[in-house]
């Protein structure tokens, strides 16, 4: 089996559109969650979201832009950034051995919403000519492949909130087995349409607005947590055969060490301790890693009642007494829930944090819930803890759980 390096990271995220900016904001605990101002936001119970500063016009010519839903725009720009950072010359290699693995939960939700408005509200007889291309779930991966002429596997994973973690894990497996040399892997999500936000509201999973500070509305593991806040963005990693990366003198962020995948198979939304714990164990087993070797955790930590209690119990089940000493970061408190992109953003932040030897804070955690009694690194980052490995968890509606384990370069 080959070792797998992370040689590039591209972020177009609520916390910033570069690794440095996103890590700086995550370390300082600056929340990107805001009240949104749209013609329909007053019809939302809590008009909150974590948005990306992004104008597609700055990145694409008009004819191409008309073919790209925002979800594809974000993905392509994040991929450009990751590939640029990796300094890998894809044009110069066998591109059958480069794959694209992208997760997205909602795909081209904005374009789909727009089409519905045209047809049902406005009574138009036609929708945009590229509606199919804009809305199809595999468009983000396809456009990345087209832009770089990558003819290896081009796969889209849609497992709701674990989509990006699954994408990275499946990409890792293929690079590890030597089937491909490089994988462009991550996730993208652009779910902030009225229809999508109303759908999430209807499920009663969205946070209510904090009356004193809207940006503090998402409170993972807190006694007063009330739900998640939707976010948008893309995070893409370049995974590369370790030896190849070393040989070409690549700058390496870290190494993917393990990937666990398993399914609750019990309820369409309610997570289970057994399912989450099984996935963490599967990740440890995949890389032959002892639980004691995990120095930190990037939690799924959505801020919902159901997840945070179950996740805490699952961590205790896997780590035993040591669970109380493993620092856990819940970064959705400040970047929101990017659904099918969240696993990639969180792994990226976790890796960047390891490189800087910082433990990212879980913000807005004044009083933890009684059953959330672990070390969540509340409200302030910690430096110099010496953590070298991280377990990054993503759990999903539908029950598909994915856990990634990574280490900073230097091991």
């Amino acid at each position, binding site marked *: 089996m080959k070792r797998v390096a992370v040689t590039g990271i591209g972020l177009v995220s609520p916390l910033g559109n570069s690794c440095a900016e996103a890590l700086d904001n995550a370390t300082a605990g600056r929340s990107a969650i805001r009240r949104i101002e749209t013609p329909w936001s007053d019809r939302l119970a809590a008009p909150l979201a974590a948005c990306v500063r992004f104008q597609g016009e700055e990145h694409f*010519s*008009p*004819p191409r832009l*008309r*073919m790209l839903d925002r979800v594809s725009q974000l993905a392509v720009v994040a991929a450009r950034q990751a590939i640029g950072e990796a300094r890998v010359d894809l044009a110069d290699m066998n591109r059958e051995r480069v794959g694209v693995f992208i997760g997205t939960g909602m795909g081209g939700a904005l374009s789909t919403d727009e089409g519905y408005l045209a047809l049902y509200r406005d009574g138009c007889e*036609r929708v*945009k*000519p*590229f509606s199919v*291309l804009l809305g199809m779930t595999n468009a983000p991966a396809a456009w990345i492949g087209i832009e770089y002429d990558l003819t290896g596997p081009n796969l889209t994973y849609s497992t709701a909130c674990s989509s990006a973690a699954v994408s990275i894990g499946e990409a890792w497996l293929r690079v590890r087995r030597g089937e491909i040399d490089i994988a462009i892997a991550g996730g993208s999500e652009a779910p902030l349409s009225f229809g999508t936000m109303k759908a999430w509201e209807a499920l009663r999973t969205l946070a209510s607005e904090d009356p004193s500070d809207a940006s503090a509305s998402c409170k993972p593991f807190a006694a007063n947590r009330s739900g998640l806040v939707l976010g948008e963005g893309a995070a893409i990693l370049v995974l590369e055969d370790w030896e190849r990366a070393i040989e070409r003198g690549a700058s390496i962020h870290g190494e993917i060490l393990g990937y666990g995948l398993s399914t609750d198979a019990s309820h369409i939304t309610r997570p289970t301790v057994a399912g989450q714990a099984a996935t963490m164990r599967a990740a440890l087993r995949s890389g032959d890693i002892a639980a004691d070797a995990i120095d930190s955790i990037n939690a799924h930590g959505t801020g919902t009642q159901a997840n945070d209690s179950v996740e805490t119990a699952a961590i205790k089940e896997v780590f035993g007494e040591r669970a109380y000493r493993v620092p856990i970061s819940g970064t959705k408190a400040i970047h929101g829930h990017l659904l099918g992109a969240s696993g990639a953003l969180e792994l990226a932040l976790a890796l960047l944090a390891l490189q800087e030897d910082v433990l990212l804070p879980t913000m807005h955690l004044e009083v933890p819930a009684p059953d959330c009694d672990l070390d969540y690194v509340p409200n302030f980052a910690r430096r110099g803890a010496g953590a070298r490995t991280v377990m990054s968890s993503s759990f999903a509606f539908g029950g598909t759980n994915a856990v990634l384990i990574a280490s900073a370069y230097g091991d």
Partner: protein
Amino acid sequence: MTTIERLSRILVQRYKVDPAQLTPDQQLGSLGIDSLGMVEILFFIEEEFGVHLPSEGIALGTLGEAAKYIDELIPASIEPTP
């Protein structure tokens, strides 16, 4: 504004085509617009001229021929239904 001018405006504004290329005998298929772009142009023509184009079998040919084709459709499209 003539039909050719209106068609040219679509090509310049939407596809950044150089206006100097847009003579009546210019083949629309030689402007560097791919097959999907041509599908989209039909959409813009319908929008601009208020005509309904058939789903298949449209060959726009040159800019001049396309304008003639559209001109022929316009009266039919605005004819009141009996």
